[in-house]
């Protein structure tokens, strides 16, 4: 279903989202960086942003979250209460929606993770289209356009937005705000089509991902891993900014009474030394070479046909050692 939202109705639309729950939108945090922050007015948000530093995975897999409280003496557990209310993520890009769909495969389709599922159900995703910069290669990964996985998707056209409805909940938002949304006319659809065509032609960066899995297999001994490892600081920034990286670590924190405490999980990074370390001191990925190899192979692999990289460019943009993801993959392919 296709609708149109006039630009002057954006405020009304925002107010209606605010009535549903807390609204998060991309906000400039200095330099060329953005972050999804809670906003109270559309003026605080910048919907023409490039990419946020921290991807939207933070809404579903928290940077740090309690799994449960325990009381050792009474042998009891208490799971944290389900978070109440709806979170609205306004302005999520197609690549990031694809990333959420990938996380869904991991956290919902197979031994569902209670906390993830709850959050996913309590989150409304409103997508917005974007223009690629020099680090975007989502066209190559097939994630520059998203057909589902969102509630509403806004495409900028003259005078407002061409709106795609992606879910029943999205439709309910439209229903509840009939005065804001008009039916899209043929000329709006035509403009959307034209814009999409133009947008797809804007991509400068290209990475051939066909057969990347085999290319990686065959490059296991490629000198590129050693060369890159020499540059790499092993800081794990690439993992934290990656919208599909989902490794987590678990720790117990004990209270001062030594009887009660909490079990917490937090984002982990496969680029850190301890990631492959088992008790007794054996490390299955002992040096940065193995760790880099593992990360790039993981990103280049498929999960039920979906590439584990959505081409958002974050790891390249935020790497303090200027390691270029696409450049390495091209070396792996023998193109550089």
């Amino acid at each position: 279903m296709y609708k149109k939202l006039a630009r002057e109705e954006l405020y009304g639309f925002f107010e209606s989202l605010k009535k549903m729950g807390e609204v998060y939108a991309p906000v400039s945090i200095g330099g060329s960086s953005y972050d999804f922050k809670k906003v109270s007015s559309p003026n605080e948000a910048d919907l023409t942003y490039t990419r946020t530093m921290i991807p939207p995975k933070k809404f579903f897999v928290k940077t740090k979250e309690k799994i449960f409280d325990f009381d050792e003496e009474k042998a009891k557990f208490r799971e944290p209460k389900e978070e109440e209310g709806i979170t609205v993520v306004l302005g999520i890009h197609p690549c990031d929606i694809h990333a959420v769909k990938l996380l869904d495969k991991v956290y919902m389709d197979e031994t569902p993770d209670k906390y993830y599922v709850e959050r996913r159900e309590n989150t409304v995703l409103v997508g917005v289209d974007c223009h690629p910069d020099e680090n975007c290669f989502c066209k190559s990964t097939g994630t520059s356009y998203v057909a589902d996985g969102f509630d509403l998707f806004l495409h900028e056209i003259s005078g407002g937005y061409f709106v795609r409805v992606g879910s029943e909940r999205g439709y309910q938002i439209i229903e509840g705000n009939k005065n804001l949304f008009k039916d899209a006319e043929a000329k709006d659809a035509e403009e959307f089509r034209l814009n999409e065509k133009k947008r797809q032609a804007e991509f400068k960066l290209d990475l051939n991902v066909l057969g990347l899995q085999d290319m990686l297999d065959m490059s296991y001994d490629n000198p590129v891993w050693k060369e890159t490892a020499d540059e790499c600081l092993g800081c794990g920034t690439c993992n934290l900014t990656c919208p599909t990286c989902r490794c987590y670590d678990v720790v117990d924190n004990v209270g001062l009474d030594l009887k009660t405490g909490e079990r917490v999980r937090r984002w982990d990074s496969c680029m850190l030394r301890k990631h492959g370390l088992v008790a007794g001191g054996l490390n299955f990925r002992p040096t940065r070479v193995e760790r880099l190899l593992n990360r790039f192979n993981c990103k280049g692999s498929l999960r039920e046909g979906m590439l584990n990289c959505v081409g958002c460019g974050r790891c390249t943009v935020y790497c303090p050692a200027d390691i270029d993801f696409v450049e390495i993959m091209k070396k792996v392919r023998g193109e550089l």
Partner: protein
Amino acid sequence: MERNNVLVPSPAKIVKIESMTDIEKLIELEFVDKDFAKNFIYEPGQFVEVSVMGVGEAPVSICAARKKEDILELCVRRVGKVTNAIHRLNVGDLLWVRGPYGNNFPMKNMEGKNLLLVGGGLGIAPLRGVLQHALVNREKYGEITVLYGVRCYTSMLFRDEFLQLFYDGDKENVKFLLSYEDSADQACYELECERNDRCLSGVVTKLFQLTEAAPDNTYAVICGPPIMYKFVVRELLQRNFDPRHIYMTLERRMKCGVGKCGHCIVGSGTSIRYVCKDGPVFTYWDAMNTKGMI
């Protein structure tokens, strides 16, 4: 809506602790929650996540075949934070268990076949489940050969049990061979003097000198320290074992056990696998197609 939370463990009371060596204890657990116990059905090769509250959680393989529904046997080596904490506990204390996780040794597929079990050190623990299952269902399996490599006599796990098999295994068509790495070990040397067709000094692969290990109709099952696999596999391949008939179980860091936390990932582009959910039991065929697995 009430949802099942896979990350919450179930309490289990320690009913028996047996010190097997300086660093390994056999711990028998009884589930407190009887409904949980009823549904806790496991096969040899699977593992559990065991918690000591306030210390953490660690993956431990189940070292016995399922006999009584509410009893779980774990062989725990004191090696890290959690296992050290487990060693400090006494009978009556609580441990917390999630699982069972992972796949298992294909006991059904192996029916009618000879079994060749190769274990090194603590690696014998998950193989004990296979052995017990085969002994209980003795008529379903052919000849059973066990190659067990230890450092010395005092580091031998399940000593009484295995020594009985060592001496009297023939009655059940079980050939139990023992190798010991510390050539100065007196007790093992005496065993060797007594039965030099069953015991020798050296690494576990040396035991292939004492047995024919014919590939026909035989499944090999391996578990031991990571370094051991490629040497055992080499022996087996030299004897023309089918890579698909060589089973092994792997160790990795596992925080979740359900294919999410990512620590146990192995492989490359075409073959990324989670050891916790796609394994821990793999065939050598899998290893041939998964870089970095062994």
